[in-house]
């Protein structure tokens, strides 16, 4: 039901954009987002619901750091 997928904006005309999903181009309503050609948008049922920000490595790094800390804590508990 909440199927949404990212695509790249090729061109814009008023409230609609031609969005490329790696080979197929779909007309998408972009009235809820502020975007320009070249941007990526998350599309659901024919509408762009959000602009996609480039994934930053730092969030993944945070998860691995927390995992490591948790593992160390467990080990410390065992040693204590």
């Amino acid at each position: 039901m909440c199927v949404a997928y990212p695509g790249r904006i090729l061109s814009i005309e008023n409230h609609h954009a031609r969005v490329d999903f790696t080979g197929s181009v779909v007309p998408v309503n972009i009235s809820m987002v502020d975007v320009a050609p070249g941007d990526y948008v998350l599309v659901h049922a024919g509408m762009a619901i959000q602009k996609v920000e480039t994934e930053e490595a730092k969030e993944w790094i945070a998860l691995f750091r927390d995992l490591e800390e948790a593992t160390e804590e467990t080990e410390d508990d065992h040693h204590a």
Partner: protein
Amino acid sequence: MKIALRHGAGGEETSKLIHDIFAAHFQNEILNKMEDAAVLPEFKGIPVFTSDSFVVEPLFFPGGDIGKLSVCGTVNDLACMGAKPLYLTASFILETGMDSETLEKVAASMAATAEEAGVKIVAGDTKVVEGNGGVYINTAGIGVRPAACSISAANLKPGDAIILTGTLGDHHATILTQRLQMETSLQSDCAPLNNMVQAVLDAGIDIHTIRDITRGGLATVAAELAEASGCRINLEEEKLPVSVAVQGLSGILGLDPLTMGNEGKMLLAVPKDEAEKALAVLKKTKYGKHAVIAGEVVEGTGVFLLTVLGSYRKVLPLRGEGLPRIC
């Protein structure tokens, strides 16, 4: 010229239509005799026989058309049994309102595909019904295979390697874009695969099973084979070939490439120690350049996917309508 009921009535107009359009394109010494039935030379080998009907909409799509499909479908079914396809019949049900130029294009496409596959269209029929300019085609095909050949859906053996001859879902995805009127770079992969299969047979590979991956996709085909053979098939997610174009379309429409069909790809099951050799042969053929070893046959039942994460999850055949009239 618009096709009308009189073109199917069996009189002069029918003869002229057959002569001008079908005979003109399908020329061969058997058809040219224009008898009531085709008299064929004696067969050397076990005859293999099949029939298929084609109702695809739209009639023309990127990568093919109903004519090309009608030849490929039947040729490929014969090839799946290890048979060399020889002769086809082609019967047409035309709807009134169809353009004779459109029909000409279809016939030309069938002729070109038949030539590539090395088969002859030797008999057929034409009827006209009231309608909206559509066309339905039935092709029946006969081929031969050696007496020693036992290629069959029931022949998968634990230890076999599963080879896929190329990317999944291309035909289904392409038809979908046409129905939804989307701009696309997708192309149907519709192709006659008998020469490719023959190359593997000629190399002496002991093929256990061949199946073309049509409606319902790999998931459906694999389920049928697993059941027929009483084995389990494990597919490897990392190895499954899917083009980015098919991935993009299935992503936005919430579809699964595993249940999207092709018209120019096959699954082969061969003994594990012959897999690399079979792969090398396939990659040298026109339609097998992107072949991969994508799984294995083991003891058990059902079809499973070894996910990239290392767990197994069940793969199920297509449920429901899927997309109507894709072939």
